[in-house]
């Protein structure tokens, strides 16, 4: 089980924590919880989804404990930019470039983007996990995408 899920869980947590040392600690704590609570797994989600949810909750709690604000700011971006064309040049769409650019996003919108886009949760589920409104989740997602496009363009164009 560990071997099967470690890569995915580590990257899920790394994208939230934005730091490999913290990610290592959180993944460790996550698997300890998994091994201790395995008897309470009820089978109403896949085991991968169950472990992922534990990993995400542990990571978000760790962020909060570290007082690294999960700040959902809406500064810096004008209304007009939300309406901009979303496509980016194909040469910017390399997984490595996107991965590095995601790690540079502010905590709040990065976490929303991760949960929605990389982990496949709906905005309703993201809102529940992060204790925000669905509308904040949507706004932060759009903000994250604008900042992500800006980072890709400024770094690689």
């Amino acid at each position, binding site marked *: 089980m*560990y*071997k099967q899920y*470690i*890569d*995915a869980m*580590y*990257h*899920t947590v*790394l994208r939230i924590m934005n730091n*490999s040392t913290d990610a*290592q*600690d959180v*993944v*460790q*704590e996550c*698997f*300890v919880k998994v*091994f*201790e609570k395995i008897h309470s797994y009820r089978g109403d989600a896949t085991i991968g989804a169950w472990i992922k949810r534990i990993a995400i909750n542990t990571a978000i709690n760790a962020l909060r404990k570290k007082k690294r604000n999960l700040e959902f700011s809406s500064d810096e971006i004008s209304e007009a930019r939300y309406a901009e064309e*979303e*496509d*980016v040049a*194909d040469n910017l*769409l390399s*997984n*490595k470039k*996107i*991965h590095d650019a995601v790690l540079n996003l502010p905590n709040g919108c990065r976490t929303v983007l991760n949960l929605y*886009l*990389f982990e*496949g949760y709906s905005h309703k589920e993201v809102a529940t996990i992060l204790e925000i409104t669905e509308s904040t989740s949507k706004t932060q997602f759009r903000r994250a*995408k604008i900042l*992500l*496009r800006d980072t890709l363009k400024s770094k690689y164009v």
Partner: protein
Amino acid sequence: MNIDKHIQENRESFDHMEPVPSEAIWIGIQQNLRTRQRRKLFIRYAAAAAIICTFSAPFLFNLSNPTIPENKIATPPLILAQEKQYYQLASDKKDELDFRNLDPAIYGEIFSELDILDSMYMDLKAELTNSPDAERAIGTAIRFHERRLRILELLEKEIENQKRIEEHESTIKI
């Protein structure tokens, strides 16, 4: 192309972007689980020991309290045989577990608790001859043995769990 679409289509690839320190994490998990297990064991045994102290404290107090009127009831042979039987069961279980082969780093705290119980029992036994109520004293001794036996049975289960974890660990190669 749209970033959303690109990420959604390549989700799995994003789980292999960085080297994963899986061995270091696994070692940390094992250490963490062992520490938690030791803590749980200690709490469980300490609780059992506390129950024994609670049971025996009034009796030990009574033994040394000169104001208790003497009431020398002849001890029925049945209760003596029972005490002997429980003592033997607990002793056999202790021999069976063979403490010499157990890791003191994991079970040291439990050994200390059992030593304390043994020592309390020895005190009880020493004072038994002066007891104003021999039947009650032997009843307390029986409860000692029952609790001691229960602790040893729990210890036996934990040893089996530990063995299973070690066997599982030895089959995993990262």
